[in-house]
């Protein structure tokens, strides 16, 4: 796949990436701020802040609805542009997607992000829709379960929910919102990517002209290192909520502090393959666990990269929780490596890589993720998936799976039967 990526760093420190693909019919533009729900402890202009949950998400709503241009979503719609924004634990992303009028829409998006209208009236208005969003998230089966996991995995984090509770949002002051905005919404902490079929020089000029007229954020803000230890706070917990079967999940807290960005990218690939080989849909181990009535059906595996840790999660609806936990622990601690199976996974990844030709999003989303999670502005190539077997073994062998938390989501009617 051709590497059509070009990079510019503006005078204000904003990095702009252009990815041209003139075979496509549309353009996608995304402004990413490396500030998400996780970042609650920081210093701004010498003053220390420890804030409640939900502020990053609150700011996202604020900028979409009450920026100098107006309502970002409705104005995009007037230009026949699809737009939205979302806040994860690590970043806030604003995007526009269209064929025509993209210059207008880009202007609206940037105007709102860099020119919020911080008034008490707007502040109170933003709260109302978020209350309903919080109610929606409370309805989700795994909400309390995931909150509890955060509490047990981390000593120095009091993060419960990315969007906060109703009480936290009710109590949220405009001064706090402004402080977070000034600390993190700075061009040096952001990047802009434009991808698709477009005239690069025209967009570069538009972006430069936009920032030439912008007030510069001169606030000094940086994160406080919470000095999170390697261990977990609690080894296991139970949550009681309606469920047809008990859900058992083991989450490993793995130290990656000393890994370089490239090493983290390779780790993602190798650990992904290790999990697929052992717990994937057609793995012999998973088939055996089903046959032995230990799990109901599939095993969920995922990795969540944070600045100093990767959380590796393995979970399933279980019929025999103890046996499931024992099996997973055995796989993760007594690592075994099958060259044939590994090479099959690599071959599958290389074949599937061809799908990236088909879609703009399939190309640039991994690129954006590489920056957010690994601080590594790198456009994946097929060869990145072809890590030699010996290197794969080395990478996995060096991982320490001794710090973990086990969570059980149990139906209240099984409470008396639980012997754990």
């Amino acid at each position, binding site marked *: 796949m051709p590497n059509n990526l070009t990079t510019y760093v503006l005078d204000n420190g904003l990095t702009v990436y252009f990815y041209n693909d003139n075979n496509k*019919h549309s353009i996608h533009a995304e402004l990413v701020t490396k500030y998400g729900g996780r970042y609650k402890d920081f210093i701004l202009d010498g003053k220390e802040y420890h804030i409640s949950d939900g502020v990053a998400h609150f700011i996202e709503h604020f900028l979409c609805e009450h920026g100098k241009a107006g309502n970002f979503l*409705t104005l995009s719609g007037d230009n026949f542009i699809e737009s939205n924004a979302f806040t994860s634990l690590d970043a806030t992303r604003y995007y526009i997607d269209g064929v025509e009028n993209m210059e207008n829409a880009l202007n609206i998006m940037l105007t709102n992000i860099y020119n919020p209208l911080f008034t008490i009236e707007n502040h109170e208005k933003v709260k109302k829709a978020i209350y309903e*969003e919080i109610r*929606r998230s*409370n*309805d989700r089966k795994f909400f309390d379960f995931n909150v509890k996991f955060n509490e047990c995995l981390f000593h120095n984090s009091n993060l419960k929910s990315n969007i906060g509770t109703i009480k936290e949002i009710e109590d949220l002051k405009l001064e706090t919102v402004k402080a977070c905005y000034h600390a993190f919404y700075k061009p040096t902490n952001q990047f802009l990517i434009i991808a698709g079929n477009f005239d690069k020089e025209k967009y570069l000029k538009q972006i430069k002209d936009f920032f030439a007229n912008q007030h510069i954020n001169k606030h000094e803000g940086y994160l406080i290192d919470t000095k999170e230890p390697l261990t977990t706070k609690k080894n296991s917990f139970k949550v009681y909520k309606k469920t047809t079967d008990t859900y058992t999940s083991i989450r490993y807290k793995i130290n990656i502090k000393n890994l370089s960005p490239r090493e983290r990218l390779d780790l993602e690939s190798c650990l992904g393959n290790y999990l697929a080989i052992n717990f994937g849909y057609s793995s*012999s181990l998973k088939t055996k666990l089903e046959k032995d009535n230990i799990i*109901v059906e599939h095993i969920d595996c995922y990795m969540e990269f944070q600045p100093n840790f990767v959380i590796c999660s393995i979970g399933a609806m279980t019929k025999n929780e103890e046996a499931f936990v024992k099996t997973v622990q055995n796989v993760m601690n007594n690592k075994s490596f099958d060259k044939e199976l590994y090479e099959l996974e690599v071959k599958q990844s290389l074949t599937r890589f061809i799908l990236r030709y*088909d879609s703009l999003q399939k190309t640039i989303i991994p690129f954006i993720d590489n920056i957010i999670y690994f601080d590594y502005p790198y456009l994946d190539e097929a060869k990145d998936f072809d890590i030699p077997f010996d290197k794969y073994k080395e990478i996995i062998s060096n991982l320490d799976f001794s710090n973990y938390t086990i969570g059980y989501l149990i139906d209240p009617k099984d409470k008396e039967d639980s012997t754990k």
Partner: protein
Amino acid sequence: MMYIEKKRGPYFLKNNAFGTITISVIFPFKYQDKNYMKIPILLNILNRSNNYKEKSDFKKAKINNYIIALNQSYENVENTAYFRFNLTIPNPNRIPEVSLEKAIALLADYIYNPFLENNGFEEKEVQKYIDIYHKEIKEREELTVNYSYRRLLEISAPKTKLSNSLKNHEYLLDEITGQNLYKFYQTIIDSNPFVFAITPNLEQEITDLINKYIYKKKEETIKISKIRNHFLTFKEFQAITEEKDFFQSYLALVYKVKDMKNKDRYTLYAIDRLLSSQSSFILLKKMRLENDLVYTTGSYSYGRYGYIALTALINKTSKEKALKTLKEVTELLKDEKYISPLLENIKNEERIEMIKDKDRKGTIIRNFIADTLEWGDTDEQFYKKLCKVKPCDINELANRLVLDTEYFVRGNKDAK
């Protein structure tokens, strides 16, 4: 005329934009309600051919043959059901090691020679999925939107296909066995399939391989149902309130169109888009931006039923105000001056979507199949008719919207 005859193919859509070739083999068969729950079980249970003892062996065969995807799906149009197998492989121009013949042979093996035990599908696997579906049905009842959407259709469009759900067919699950499921599967694959391929080239090679491995019958045409309208008639207004252990409350208004005609389908679609598409967003503007009542609100319509629903997830204390606002929104549709610029917006939005669709392989394939089998207007045909809709048409149809159902699910839980 309720049926049409179509050639089985293979049909080719030449497309150079993608790095892959996709082949869909679609078996039409008679839709019968008694088989409703066999379909989801079947979709899950097909995972390898009889030549592979374990799933891992079949996975190995797929990978070694560079198969990116091999799966199945299901559609239903009137009395014809369609069981579809999809194969995606890299274009051999990109990866020369790809063997078209081996890939299609594996596809045929997968279709015609599924993994069996005692002349049926594995009983343990069948029972596993029956249990999973019982649990899935139970779990969906605990989710605000899943539960409410299902119930709304049940009460506002009873005894129609719209109200079909896993829940109201759950009783059929325990009748399924490995043997009767396989017998049902045999009736499916015994029919003559349609074949579609999206490929930059290789039409002759694909045709020869389809003839060799896929087609089993000599007949070249297949009879399928023609799509029809089933306009619902209003009987009497009903207002239903339920109490559930949810954090959110759900409010919906269902309207049916009086004296609905086929040409009204385009106007009804335009109304649906005026209410909830981003270029118009009437519901969002009124319910959220002006009145702070929601995070989520929207609409959906079934043109062939003359049915449209406005929905909102609200706080339990906001019911009266939300109801009033929703009704005001439907009155707004009669304001031609208000509607006129928004109507132009949604037409432009559709035009832009058609341009974007040129990059969406899934949409291209879906449209290609739907167009060929006459499952409705093509996107272009629909767009041309949509462009003819005027503000006075919106006003006229809005005056024929009859409020059929008001449905409120009060969530009793309090979020912190």
